[in-house]
C-alpha cells in the first residue's frame, strides 16, 4: 500500500509541474490580450483559470498521499511550514513555500472582486516566484529527477517559461502595443 501511495504522490507531482507550467503560459498569453486562432480571449482566460484549479487538485493528490505514507514521514506542519522535513528538508521546503504561495494566489484569485485589482495583482505576481520554486523542488526532491526523461522534461518546461517571460517583458507584448505606439489601425481579428 505504501508503494502505491508513494508512486501516486510522485506521479501527481510531475503532472502538477506540467499543469503549473500550462497555467503560467496561459496566464502570460491572457495578459497579452491576444486570442489564439482557435481560442478567443474569453476561452483562454477560462482555460487559464481551470488549469490552475486543476493544478490545485493535483497538488492535493501530490501532498495527501505523502501524509498517509509512513515511509515519507511528512506531517501536517510540513505541508505549510517550510524546511522542517526529515528528508531533504531544503528541497522539500521549496515545495512547501510554493504550496503556500499557490494558496495565496488561488485565494486572492477567487476573491478578486472583493479584494480589488491592486491586491489581486500584487499577490498574483507571486506566481512568478512559485513556478521556479516548484520546479526546483521537483528537481531537487524528485526520486527520478536525474533520469533522462525527467531532466528533458524539466528543460522543456524551463525553456517554455523563460521564452514566455522574455516575450512578457518585450515591447510588442500587448495586442494593442502597435496601435498605442501610434502604429497602423487594426480590425482586431473580427470574424
Amino acid at each position, binding site marked *: 500500500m505504501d508503494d502505491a501511495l508513494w508512486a501516486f504522490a510522485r506521479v501527481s507531482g510531475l503532472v502538477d509541474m506540467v499543469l503549473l507550467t500550462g497555467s503560467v503560459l496561459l496566464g502570460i498569453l491572457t495578459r497579452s490580450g491576444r*486570442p489564439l486562432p482557435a481560442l478567443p*480571449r*474569453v476561452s483562454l482566460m477560462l482555460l487559464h483559470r481551470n488549469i490552475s484549479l486543476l493544478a490545485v487538485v493535483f497538488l492535493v493528490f501530490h501532498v495527501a498521499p505523502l501524509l498517509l505514507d509512513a515511509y515519507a514521514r511528512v506531517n501536517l506542519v510540513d505541508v505549510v511550514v517550510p524546511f522542517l522535513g526529515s528528508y531533504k528538508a531544503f528541497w522539500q521546503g521549496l515545495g512547501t513555500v510554493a504550496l503556500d504561495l499557490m494558496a495565496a494566489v488561488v485565494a486572492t484569485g477567487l476573491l478578486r472582486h472583493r479584494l480589488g*485589482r491592486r491586491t489581486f495583482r500584487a499577490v498574483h505576481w507571486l506566481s512568478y516566484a512559485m513556478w521556479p520554486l516548484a520546479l526546483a523542488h521537483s528537481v531537487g526532491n524528485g526520486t527520478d529527477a536525474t533520469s533522462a526523461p525527467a531532466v528533458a522534461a524539466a528543460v522543456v518546461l524551463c525553456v517554455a517559461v523563460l521564452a514566455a517571460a522574455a516575450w512578457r517583458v518585450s515591447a510588442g507584448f500587448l495586442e*494593442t502595443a502597435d496601435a498605442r505606439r501610434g502604429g497602423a489601425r487594426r480590425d*482586431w481579428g473580427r470574424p
Partner: protein
Amino acid sequence: MSVAGPAARLHIDWTMCDGRGLCTELLPEALTRDDWGYPLAAPGRVRARADASNVPLTGAELGAAVDAVKLCPLLALRITGP
C-alpha cells in the same frame, strides 16, 4: 433595442479599462473596439457621446454581460439599472 427600452446598462469605468477585449468578444452586438483596443458602444446603441460609458443592453445580452463583468481582468465593468 425593444420599444420598452434597455433591460439594463453596462457601465464602463474608463479609469480602470485597459482594452483587453474580453467584453467586446462576449457582447459583439453591443460593443465594438476603437483603434487602441478599448470598448465602444456599437453604432446606434447610444444617442449621445455623453452616454457612451453606460451601454444599453437587451434582455438577451444580460447573461453575457454578467460574464463580462465577472471576467474583466481590470474589474472595469458594472451592470446598472436601465
